[in-house]
Protein backbone atom coordinates (compact mmCIF):
# COMPACT_ATOMS: atom_id res chain seq x y z
CA UNK A 1 0.00 0.00 0.00
CA UNK A 2 1.35 3.42 -0.83
CA UNK A 3 1.76 5.74 2.07
CA UNK A 4 -0.65 8.17 0.46
CA UNK A 5 -3.37 5.58 0.72
CA UNK A 6 -2.45 4.92 4.36
CA UNK A 7 -2.96 8.62 4.95
CA UNK A 8 -6.23 8.65 3.04
CA UNK A 9 -7.54 5.59 4.87
CA UNK A 10 -6.56 7.01 8.26
CA UNK A 11 -8.24 10.29 7.37
CA UNK A 12 -11.37 8.37 6.40
CA UNK A 13 -11.31 6.38 9.64
CA UNK A 14 -10.85 9.58 11.62
CA UNK A 15 -13.83 11.09 9.86
CA UNK A 16 -15.95 8.01 10.74
CA UNK A 17 -14.85 8.22 14.39
CA UNK A 18 -15.62 11.95 14.24
CA UNK A 19 -19.11 11.20 12.91
CA UNK A 20 -19.81 8.90 15.84
CA UNK A 21 -18.57 11.53 18.27
CA UNK A 22 -20.55 14.31 16.66
CA UNK A 23 -23.89 12.53 16.13
CA UNK A 24 -26.10 12.74 19.20
CA UNK A 25 -28.84 10.44 17.95
CA UNK A 26 -27.13 7.71 15.96
CA UNK A 27 -29.34 5.89 13.48
CA UNK A 28 -28.82 2.15 13.99
CA UNK A 29 -28.63 1.27 10.32
CA UNK A 30 -26.51 4.25 9.29
CA UNK A 31 -24.25 3.55 12.24
CA UNK A 32 -23.91 -0.06 11.19
CA UNK A 33 -22.99 0.97 7.68
CA UNK A 34 -20.30 3.27 9.09
CA UNK A 35 -19.04 0.54 11.42
CA UNK A 36 -18.77 -1.85 8.47
CA UNK A 37 -16.88 0.73 6.44
CA UNK A 38 -14.60 1.41 9.40
CA UNK A 39 -14.03 -2.31 9.93
CA UNK A 40 -12.81 -2.75 6.37
CA UNK A 41 -10.43 0.19 6.74
CA UNK A 42 -9.13 -1.16 10.06
CA UNK A 43 -8.52 -4.53 8.42
CA UNK A 44 -6.49 -2.91 5.63
CA UNK A 45 -4.52 -0.68 7.96
CA UNK A 46 -3.77 -3.51 10.37
CA UNK A 47 -2.03 -5.28 7.52
CA UNK A 48 0.34 -2.31 7.37
CA UNK A 49 1.32 -2.84 10.98
CA UNK A 50 2.58 -6.36 10.43
CA UNK A 51 6.29 -6.80 11.09
CA UNK A 52 8.13 -6.81 7.77
CA UNK A 53 11.95 -6.96 7.60
CA UNK A 54 13.62 -3.80 6.33
CA UNK A 55 15.71 -3.90 3.18
CA UNK A 56 19.27 -2.66 3.10
CA UNK A 57 21.36 -1.68 0.11
CA UNK A 58 24.58 0.21 -0.45
CA UNK A 59 24.50 2.64 -3.32
CA UNK A 60 27.68 2.30 -5.33
CA UNK A 61 30.09 5.17 -5.08
CA UNK A 62 30.52 5.45 -8.84
CA UNK A 63 26.87 6.39 -9.05
CA UNK A 64 27.57 9.25 -6.73
CA UNK A 65 30.82 10.79 -7.88
CA UNK A 66 30.44 12.49 -11.21
Amino acid at each position, binding site marked *: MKKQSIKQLLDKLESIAGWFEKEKDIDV*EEGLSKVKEGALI*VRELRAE*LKEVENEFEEIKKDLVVE
Partner: protein
Amino acid sequence: MSEEPILSPFDVIPLSVGQFLDVVNIALRGSPASVYGEVVEVKESSKWVSFTLKDKEEEAILKCVLGVWQYRRIGVRLEDGMEIRVKGNPSISKRFGSFGFWVEEIEPLGEGSLKRAYELLQKQLAMEGLFNRKRALSEFVRSVVVITSRDGVVIQDFKKNLIKRGIKVSLLDTRVEGQSAVPGLLSCIEFVSKTDGRFDVLVVMRGGGSLESMQAFNNEAVVRALFAVPIPTVAAIGHDVNVPLVAMVADREVSTPTAAAIALNQSWDRLSIGLPVLASKIVERYAVSLPKERVERAVERMLTRFGAVLSNFSHHGTLYASRIMNAYSRLFQEVNKLEHALLRCADRLGNAIIRANDSVSRVSRLLTLADPGRNLRLGYSIIFDSGGKVLKSIESVRKGDTLRSKLSDGEVSGTVDEILGER
Protein backbone atom coordinates in the same frame (compact mmCIF):
# COMPACT_ATOMS: atom_id res chain seq x y z
CA MET B 1 89.21 19.05 -29.89
CA SER B 2 86.63 21.73 -30.44
CA GLU B 3 85.72 24.20 -27.69
CA GLU B 4 82.12 24.75 -26.45
CA PRO B 5 80.89 28.18 -27.44
CA ILE B 6 80.34 30.50 -24.48
CA LEU B 7 76.75 31.69 -24.47
CA SER B 8 75.73 34.92 -22.86
CA PRO B 9 72.17 35.44 -21.59
CA PHE B 10 71.54 37.51 -24.67
CA ASP B 11 72.29 34.56 -26.95
CA VAL B 12 69.12 32.58 -25.85
CA ILE B 13 65.83 33.31 -27.55
CA PRO B 14 64.55 36.52 -26.05
CA LEU B 15 61.09 36.47 -24.41
CA SER B 16 58.71 39.24 -23.64
CA VAL B 17 57.96 39.85 -19.93
CA GLY B 18 54.62 38.17 -20.29
CA GLN B 19 56.09 35.16 -22.10
CA PHE B 20 58.80 34.84 -19.48
CA LEU B 21 56.32 34.91 -16.59
CA ASP B 22 54.21 32.31 -18.38
CA VAL B 23 57.26 30.02 -18.56
CA VAL B 24 58.01 30.61 -14.87
CA ASN B 25 54.42 30.01 -13.83
CA ILE B 26 54.25 26.76 -15.79
CA ALA B 27 57.35 25.62 -13.95
CA LEU B 28 55.93 26.70 -10.57
CA ARG B 29 52.65 24.97 -11.21
CA GLY B 30 54.48 21.70 -11.08
CA SER B 31 55.55 22.43 -7.52
CA PRO B 32 52.43 22.18 -5.35
CA ALA B 33 53.12 22.88 -1.71
CA SER B 34 51.59 22.76 1.74
CA VAL B 35 52.46 25.77 3.90
CA TYR B 36 51.40 26.70 7.42
CA GLY B 37 51.41 30.00 9.26
CA GLU B 38 49.32 32.65 10.99
CA VAL B 39 46.68 34.52 9.03
CA VAL B 40 46.90 38.30 8.84
CA GLU B 41 45.27 40.94 6.65
CA VAL B 42 42.28 38.93 5.42
CA LYS B 43 40.56 40.87 2.64
CA GLU B 44 37.45 39.85 0.70
CA SER B 45 36.25 41.54 -2.49
CA SER B 46 33.44 40.52 -4.80
CA LYS B 47 35.79 38.23 -6.75
CA TRP B 48 38.84 37.49 -4.65
CA VAL B 49 39.87 36.65 -1.11
CA SER B 50 43.43 37.49 -0.13
CA PHE B 51 45.39 37.10 3.08
CA THR B 52 48.97 36.93 4.26
CA LEU B 53 50.47 33.92 5.94
CA LYS B 54 53.02 34.96 8.53
CA ASP B 55 55.78 32.74 9.86
CA LYS B 56 55.72 32.67 13.66
CA GLU B 57 59.39 31.80 14.02
CA GLU B 58 61.08 34.26 11.69
CA GLU B 59 60.31 37.30 9.62
CA ALA B 60 58.78 35.73 6.55
CA ILE B 61 55.44 36.26 4.83
CA LEU B 62 53.56 34.65 1.95
CA LYS B 63 50.83 36.46 0.05
CA CYS B 64 47.91 34.10 -0.62
CA VAL B 65 44.91 34.50 -2.90
CA LEU B 66 41.91 32.51 -4.09
CA GLY B 67 38.61 33.16 -5.82
CA VAL B 68 35.52 33.84 -3.74
CA TRP B 69 33.81 30.78 -5.27
CA GLN B 70 36.74 28.60 -4.23
CA TYR B 71 36.71 30.17 -0.75
CA ARG B 72 33.01 29.24 -0.40
CA ARG B 73 33.64 25.73 -1.69
CA ILE B 74 36.45 25.20 0.82
CA GLY B 75 34.04 26.30 3.51
CA VAL B 76 36.44 27.59 6.18
CA ARG B 77 36.00 31.16 7.39
CA LEU B 78 39.26 33.04 8.03
CA GLU B 79 40.09 35.71 10.54
CA ASP B 80 43.32 37.43 11.53
CA GLY B 81 45.23 35.43 14.11
CA MET B 82 44.05 31.98 13.03
CA GLU B 83 46.67 29.35 12.38
CA ILE B 84 46.08 27.46 9.19
CA ARG B 85 47.67 25.20 6.65
CA VAL B 86 47.13 25.91 2.97
CA LYS B 87 47.68 23.69 -0.04
CA GLY B 88 48.15 25.10 -3.51
CA ASN B 89 50.67 26.36 -6.06
CA PRO B 90 53.09 29.27 -6.08
CA SER B 91 52.61 31.80 -8.85
CA ILE B 92 53.75 35.21 -10.07
CA SER B 93 51.15 37.79 -10.96
CA LYS B 94 51.82 39.00 -14.49
CA ARG B 95 50.06 42.26 -13.85
CA PHE B 96 51.85 43.23 -10.65
CA GLY B 97 54.97 41.10 -10.92
CA SER B 98 54.45 39.92 -7.38
CA PHE B 99 55.00 36.44 -6.04
CA GLY B 100 52.05 34.77 -4.38
CA PHE B 101 50.35 31.52 -3.53
CA TRP B 102 47.18 30.25 -5.20
CA VAL B 103 45.24 28.51 -2.47
CA GLU B 104 43.25 25.33 -3.21
CA GLU B 105 42.64 24.06 0.31
CA ILE B 106 42.59 25.59 3.79
CA GLU B 107 42.70 23.73 7.07
CA PRO B 108 42.59 25.43 10.46
CA LEU B 109 45.27 24.20 12.86
CA GLY B 110 44.83 23.83 16.60
CA GLU B 111 41.72 23.90 18.75
CA GLY B 112 41.69 27.70 18.98
CA SER B 113 41.62 28.26 15.23
CA LEU B 114 39.09 25.50 14.67
CA LYS B 115 36.81 26.96 17.30
CA ARG B 116 37.14 30.44 15.86
CA ALA B 117 36.35 29.19 12.34
CA TYR B 118 33.34 27.36 13.77
CA GLU B 119 32.10 30.48 15.58
CA LEU B 120 32.53 32.73 12.56
CA LEU B 121 30.61 30.39 10.28
CA GLN B 122 27.90 29.74 12.86
CA LYS B 123 27.35 33.47 13.22
CA GLN B 124 27.17 33.99 9.48
CA LEU B 125 24.77 31.09 8.84
CA ALA B 126 22.56 32.08 11.77
CA MET B 127 22.36 35.59 10.35
CA GLU B 128 21.21 34.15 7.04
CA GLY B 129 18.53 32.13 8.81
CA LEU B 130 19.78 28.70 7.79
CA PHE B 131 19.15 27.28 11.24
CA ASN B 132 15.55 28.45 11.46
CA ARG B 133 13.88 26.26 8.84
CA LYS B 134 12.69 22.99 10.33
CA ARG B 135 10.63 20.74 8.06
CA ALA B 136 8.53 17.93 9.51
CA LEU B 137 9.49 14.38 8.62
CA SER B 138 6.99 12.80 6.28
CA GLU B 139 4.53 10.28 7.72
CA PHE B 140 5.09 6.54 7.27
CA VAL B 141 8.73 6.71 6.20
CA ARG B 142 9.44 3.86 3.79
CA SER B 143 12.68 4.89 2.12
CA VAL B 144 15.70 6.27 3.98
CA VAL B 145 19.06 7.30 2.57
CA VAL B 146 21.93 7.33 5.06
CA ILE B 147 25.24 9.11 4.54
CA THR B 148 27.96 7.71 6.77
CA SER B 149 30.93 5.38 6.80
CA ARG B 150 30.01 1.77 6.14
CA ASP B 151 32.71 0.72 8.61
CA GLY B 152 31.34 2.61 11.59
CA VAL B 153 29.12 1.08 14.27
CA VAL B 154 26.56 3.85 13.83
CA ILE B 155 24.94 2.28 10.78
CA GLN B 156 24.54 -1.01 12.64
CA ASP B 157 22.91 0.72 15.62
CA PHE B 158 20.59 2.57 13.28
CA LYS B 159 19.50 -0.56 11.43
CA LYS B 160 19.01 -2.49 14.65
CA ASN B 161 16.68 0.11 16.13
CA LEU B 162 14.63 0.92 13.04
CA ILE B 163 11.05 -0.33 13.23
CA LYS B 164 10.36 -3.32 10.95
CA ARG B 165 7.95 -1.94 8.42
CA GLY B 166 9.66 -3.04 5.23
CA ILE B 167 11.63 0.20 5.16
CA LYS B 168 14.29 0.47 2.45
CA VAL B 169 17.58 1.80 3.83
CA SER B 170 20.10 2.97 1.24
CA LEU B 171 23.66 3.65 2.37
CA LEU B 172 25.96 6.17 0.76
CA ASP B 173 29.37 5.26 2.09
CA THR B 174 31.84 8.10 2.59
CA ARG B 175 34.71 9.22 4.80
CA VAL B 176 33.59 11.18 7.84
CA GLU B 177 36.91 12.00 9.47
CA GLY B 178 38.62 15.40 9.29
CA GLN B 179 38.73 18.04 6.59
CA SER B 180 39.43 15.47 3.87
CA ALA B 181 35.90 14.10 4.28
CA VAL B 182 34.44 17.25 2.70
CA PRO B 183 34.47 16.22 -1.01
CA GLY B 184 32.89 12.83 -0.30
CA LEU B 185 30.20 14.29 1.92
CA LEU B 186 29.43 16.95 -0.66
CA SER B 187 29.08 14.50 -3.52
CA CYS B 188 26.79 12.26 -1.46
CA ILE B 189 24.56 15.15 -0.40
CA GLU B 190 24.39 16.49 -3.94
CA PHE B 191 23.50 13.01 -5.20
CA VAL B 192 20.54 12.89 -2.80
CA SER B 193 19.43 16.34 -3.93
CA LYS B 194 19.26 15.09 -7.50
CA THR B 195 17.19 12.00 -6.71
CA ASP B 196 13.92 13.77 -6.10
CA GLY B 197 11.16 11.47 -4.88
CA ARG B 198 13.32 8.37 -4.40
CA PHE B 199 13.86 8.89 -0.67
CA ASP B 200 11.59 10.13 2.11
CA VAL B 201 14.35 11.32 4.39
CA LEU B 202 18.11 11.80 4.50
CA VAL B 203 20.04 10.83 7.63
CA VAL B 204 23.63 12.02 8.09
CA MET B 205 25.45 10.10 10.79
CA ARG B 206 28.79 9.79 12.54
CA GLY B 207 30.01 9.11 16.04
CA GLY B 208 31.38 11.76 18.34
CA GLY B 209 34.81 13.33 18.01
CA SER B 210 37.00 16.37 18.48
CA LEU B 211 36.46 19.64 16.66
CA GLU B 212 39.34 18.66 14.40
CA SER B 213 37.93 15.27 13.43
CA MET B 214 34.51 16.89 12.95
CA GLN B 215 35.75 19.56 10.52
CA ALA B 216 33.77 18.30 7.55
CA PHE B 217 30.57 18.63 9.58
CA ASN B 218 31.39 22.26 10.30
CA ASN B 219 32.23 23.04 6.71
CA GLU B 220 30.30 25.84 5.04
CA ALA B 221 29.91 24.07 1.70
CA VAL B 222 28.62 20.90 3.37
CA VAL B 223 26.21 22.84 5.57
CA ARG B 224 24.82 24.79 2.61
CA ALA B 225 24.49 21.63 0.52
CA LEU B 226 22.50 19.96 3.29
CA PHE B 227 20.25 23.00 3.57
CA ALA B 228 19.54 22.68 -0.17
CA VAL B 229 18.40 19.04 0.04
CA PRO B 230 14.73 18.96 -1.02
CA ILE B 231 13.68 16.23 1.42
CA PRO B 232 13.66 16.45 5.24
CA THR B 233 17.02 15.75 6.87
CA VAL B 234 18.08 14.21 10.16
CA ALA B 235 21.56 14.68 11.63
CA ALA B 236 22.73 12.06 14.10
CA ILE B 237 26.18 13.28 15.03
CA GLY B 238 27.77 12.74 18.40
CA HIS B 239 29.18 15.89 20.00
CA ASP B 240 30.07 17.49 23.29
CA VAL B 241 29.93 21.26 23.64
CA ASN B 242 29.91 22.49 20.05
CA VAL B 243 26.89 21.25 18.13
CA PRO B 244 28.11 20.53 14.58
CA LEU B 245 26.79 23.07 12.10
CA VAL B 246 25.45 20.25 9.93
CA ALA B 247 23.30 19.21 12.90
CA MET B 248 22.11 22.78 13.38
CA VAL B 249 20.98 23.12 9.78
CA ALA B 250 19.27 19.70 9.64
CA ASP B 251 15.50 19.55 10.11
CA ARG B 252 15.90 17.20 13.06
CA GLU B 253 18.96 16.95 15.27
CA VAL B 254 19.71 13.95 17.45
CA SER B 255 23.00 12.80 18.89
CA THR B 256 22.90 9.03 18.35
CA PRO B 257 21.94 6.65 15.54
CA THR B 258 19.45 4.98 17.89
CA ALA B 259 17.71 8.31 18.42
CA ALA B 260 17.62 8.80 14.64
CA ALA B 261 15.91 5.43 14.23
CA ILE B 262 13.40 6.33 16.94
CA ALA B 263 12.64 9.63 15.19
CA LEU B 264 11.81 7.72 12.01
CA ASN B 265 9.83 5.11 13.93
CA GLN B 266 7.67 7.93 15.27
CA SER B 267 6.59 8.71 11.72
CA TRP B 268 4.42 5.58 12.05
CA ASP B 269 2.80 6.61 15.35
CA ARG B 270 -0.38 7.92 13.78
CA LEU B 271 -1.02 4.42 12.48
CA SER B 272 0.44 2.20 15.20
CA ILE B 273 -0.95 4.21 18.11
CA GLY B 274 -3.85 5.93 16.37
CA LEU B 275 -5.50 2.89 14.78
CA PRO B 276 -6.53 1.05 17.98
CA VAL B 277 -7.72 4.35 19.47
CA LEU B 278 -9.92 5.12 16.46
CA ALA B 279 -11.28 1.58 16.33
CA SER B 280 -12.21 1.64 19.99
CA LYS B 281 -13.85 5.06 19.64
CA ILE B 282 -16.11 3.80 16.88
CA VAL B 283 -17.02 0.58 18.69
CA GLU B 284 -17.69 2.29 22.00
CA ARG B 285 -19.79 5.05 20.49
CA TYR B 286 -21.80 2.58 18.45
CA ALA B 287 -22.27 0.39 21.52
CA VAL B 288 -23.61 3.33 23.51
CA SER B 289 -25.99 4.21 20.69
CA LEU B 290 -27.58 0.76 20.58
CA PRO B 291 -30.14 0.26 23.37
CA LYS B 292 -32.37 -2.77 22.74
CA GLU B 293 -35.47 -0.79 21.82
CA ARG B 294 -33.60 1.11 19.11
CA VAL B 295 -32.41 -2.13 17.51
CA GLU B 296 -35.97 -3.44 17.60
CA ARG B 297 -37.26 -0.27 15.97
CA ALA B 298 -34.68 -0.62 13.23
CA VAL B 299 -35.72 -4.22 12.57
CA GLU B 300 -39.37 -3.22 12.50
CA ARG B 301 -38.61 -0.54 9.94
CA MET B 302 -36.86 -3.17 7.87
CA LEU B 303 -39.81 -5.58 8.11
CA THR B 304 -42.37 -2.99 7.07
CA ARG B 305 -40.56 -2.67 3.77
CA PHE B 306 -42.15 -5.98 2.76
CA GLY B 307 -45.64 -4.53 3.02
CA ALA B 308 -48.90 -5.73 4.44
CA VAL B 309 -48.35 -9.34 3.38
CA LEU B 310 -46.09 -9.69 6.38
CA SER B 311 -48.57 -8.37 8.85
CA ASN B 312 -49.41 -11.89 10.00
CA PHE B 313 -45.78 -12.63 10.62
CA SER B 314 -44.90 -9.74 12.88
CA HIS B 315 -43.62 -12.18 15.48
CA HIS B 316 -40.68 -12.77 13.10
CA GLY B 317 -39.64 -9.15 13.63
CA THR B 318 -39.49 -9.63 17.36
CA LEU B 319 -37.66 -12.91 16.88
CA TYR B 320 -34.98 -11.38 14.65
CA ALA B 321 -34.63 -8.30 16.81
CA SER B 322 -34.02 -10.61 19.73
CA ARG B 323 -31.43 -12.60 17.77
CA ILE B 324 -29.62 -9.44 16.74
CA MET B 325 -29.58 -8.20 20.30
CA ASN B 326 -28.21 -11.53 21.48
CA ALA B 327 -25.45 -11.38 18.90
CA TYR B 328 -24.72 -7.84 19.93
CA SER B 329 -24.60 -8.71 23.64
CA ARG B 330 -22.35 -11.70 23.09
CA LEU B 331 -20.08 -9.55 20.97
CA PHE B 332 -19.46 -6.92 23.59
CA GLN B 333 -19.20 -9.44 26.38
CA GLU B 334 -16.40 -11.37 24.79
CA VAL B 335 -14.48 -8.66 22.96
CA ASN B 336 -10.98 -8.32 24.32
CA LYS B 337 -9.18 -6.53 21.58
CA LEU B 338 -10.92 -3.40 20.51
CA GLU B 339 -9.53 -3.34 17.03
CA HIS B 340 -11.17 -6.71 16.42
CA ALA B 341 -14.42 -5.47 17.85
CA LEU B 342 -15.14 -3.42 14.76
CA LEU B 343 -14.87 -6.38 12.48
CA ARG B 344 -16.93 -8.63 14.71
CA CYS B 345 -19.52 -5.96 15.30
CA ALA B 346 -19.96 -5.38 11.62
CA ASP B 347 -19.96 -9.05 10.73
CA ARG B 348 -22.39 -10.22 13.37
CA LEU B 349 -24.88 -7.39 13.28
CA GLY B 350 -24.68 -7.23 9.51
CA ASN B 351 -25.11 -10.97 9.09
CA ALA B 352 -28.02 -11.07 11.54
CA ILE B 353 -29.87 -8.42 9.60
CA ILE B 354 -29.05 -10.08 6.29
CA ARG B 355 -30.38 -13.40 7.61
CA ALA B 356 -33.54 -11.68 8.82
CA ASN B 357 -33.99 -10.10 5.40
CA ASP B 358 -33.50 -13.45 3.65
CA SER B 359 -36.00 -15.26 5.87
CA VAL B 360 -38.62 -12.61 5.45
CA SER B 361 -38.16 -12.68 1.68
CA ARG B 362 -38.63 -16.45 1.64
CA VAL B 363 -41.85 -16.26 3.68
CA SER B 364 -43.06 -13.52 1.42
CA ARG B 365 -42.53 -15.70 -1.65
CA LEU B 366 -44.41 -18.64 -0.08
CA LEU B 367 -47.35 -16.44 0.82
CA THR B 368 -47.50 -15.12 -2.69
CA LEU B 369 -47.69 -18.63 -4.15
CA ALA B 370 -50.47 -19.58 -1.76
CA ASP B 371 -52.61 -16.52 -2.47
CA PRO B 372 -56.08 -17.74 -3.89
CA GLY B 373 -56.40 -14.58 -5.91
CA ARG B 374 -53.26 -15.55 -7.83
CA ASN B 375 -54.87 -18.96 -8.79
CA LEU B 376 -58.11 -17.30 -9.89
CA ARG B 377 -56.05 -15.04 -12.16
CA LEU B 378 -54.43 -18.15 -13.62
CA GLY B 379 -57.93 -19.50 -14.71
CA TYR B 380 -59.05 -21.50 -11.68
CA SER B 381 -62.44 -20.80 -10.07
CA ILE B 382 -64.18 -21.50 -6.73
CA ILE B 383 -67.72 -22.96 -6.72
CA PHE B 384 -70.15 -22.29 -3.87
CA ASP B 385 -73.49 -24.12 -3.21
CA SER B 386 -76.72 -22.27 -2.63
CA GLY B 387 -75.81 -22.00 1.07
CA GLY B 388 -72.50 -20.29 0.22
CA LYS B 389 -70.27 -23.25 1.12
CA VAL B 390 -67.32 -24.08 -1.06
CA LEU B 391 -67.94 -27.23 -3.11
CA LYS B 392 -65.13 -29.75 -2.83
CA SER B 393 -66.92 -32.95 -4.15
CA ILE B 394 -69.83 -33.93 -6.48
CA GLU B 395 -71.37 -36.00 -3.68
CA SER B 396 -73.13 -33.02 -2.14
CA VAL B 397 -74.53 -31.84 -5.51
CA ARG B 398 -77.94 -32.75 -6.84
CA LYS B 399 -79.48 -32.23 -10.27
CA GLY B 400 -81.29 -28.87 -10.38
CA ASP B 401 -79.17 -27.24 -7.63
CA THR B 402 -78.23 -23.59 -8.14
CA LEU B 403 -74.46 -23.01 -7.86
CA ARG B 404 -72.34 -19.84 -7.81
CA SER B 405 -68.86 -19.68 -9.36
CA LYS B 406 -66.21 -17.14 -8.31
CA LEU B 407 -63.75 -16.04 -11.01
CA SER B 408 -60.84 -13.57 -10.81
CA ASP B 409 -62.94 -10.54 -11.71
CA GLY B 410 -66.49 -11.51 -10.58
CA GLU B 411 -69.05 -14.26 -10.11
CA VAL B 412 -71.52 -16.22 -12.27
CA SER B 413 -74.42 -18.54 -11.24
CA GLY B 414 -76.24 -21.47 -12.95
CA THR B 415 -78.27 -24.71 -12.51
CA VAL B 416 -76.86 -28.28 -12.46
CA ASP B 417 -78.20 -30.19 -15.53
CA GLU B 418 -76.20 -33.37 -15.20
CA ILE B 419 -73.75 -35.04 -12.76
CA LEU B 420 -71.07 -36.91 -14.65
CA GLY B 421 -68.78 -38.29 -12.00
CA GLU B 422 -65.05 -38.78 -12.35
CA ARG B 423 -63.77 -39.28 -15.86
